[in-house]
């Protein structure tokens, strides 16, 4: 299904946010997901269904002051 991940369109086979994380090879990494503006804790990933055109943001901590 067509999803907009971090601002770019991407074709992914996924039913939930947990699937998206896994398909992108980010399982087990300290990432945070937001789906259509809703911030999710990692416990909510497997219960959050994705839909075509959904805007997903995947962020993490980087160096900064």
């Amino acid at each position, binding site marked *: 299904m067509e999803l907009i*991940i*971090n*601002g*770019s369109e*991407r074709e992914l086979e996924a039913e939930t946010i947990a699937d998206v994380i896994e398909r*992108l*090879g*980010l399982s087990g*990494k*300290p*990432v*945070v*997901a*937001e789906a259509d503006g809703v*911030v*999710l*804790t*990692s416990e909510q990933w497997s219960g959050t269904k994705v839909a075509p055109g959904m805007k997903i*943001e*995947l*962020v*993490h*901590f*980087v*160096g*900064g*002051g």
Partner: protein
Amino acid sequence: MKQDTWRIGDRVLTSRFFIGTGLFPNPYVQMEAIAASEAEVLTFAIRRVNLESAEDDSILQHVQGNDYIFLPNTSGARTAEEAVRIARLARASGLSDWVKVEISANERTLLPDPIETLKATETLVKEGFTVLPYISDDPIICKRLEEAGAAAIMPGAAPIGTGLGILNPYNIGLIVEEATVPVIVDAGLGTASDVTRAMELGVSGVLMNTPVAKAKDPVMMAEAMKRAIDAGRLAYLSGRMAKRRYASASSGYEQFKIQ
């Protein structure tokens, strides 16, 4: 001497050094510098994951296993709304409910937008965050942020990354006098003497990144900054002598001068 601890929210801190994690030449030097600094609080930024790179560029892989307090910032935000969003994302990591509100509206100066910073602080305090706003060195806005529930106030010494030192020590001193929450000088410090001066003004701590990361020897500079904090803090607690316009001999015994 009794241990000189201080407190932000419900956390008791021993170190007065908050250290940033950006711009270091490599993770090894960064971790050595953090160790030398003896900092307990580390700052981070929040950014999109680079989906094109398979490499794990997460900074956390280097600091895990240590008992640090994480202070994510909202850098990149231009409005209160954007800052609140970044703060919520940071908290969803489960790593920290502290946030450094950082809202810049001008690319050249990166100076904080005080109105948006106040708005974001109000919202995030209501949502239960421990909020540490980075703000201009203006005593009135600092007071307003404190009244809004900020856990600490972080006035800048000079614009971010400039290393210009404390441009307005009078204002920093006033902010300290007025504040009932810790004041942390954030941004603009360049070298150890700037840090000592900040501590002598009575601030509770300093937050630095560039002056350590961009030193030729970041590990040695972290050590220098740590000692500068201690020196300035002790000088502040000791109470400096009054300044005088003219000389005053330190030997005394005026009547026994050899004629």
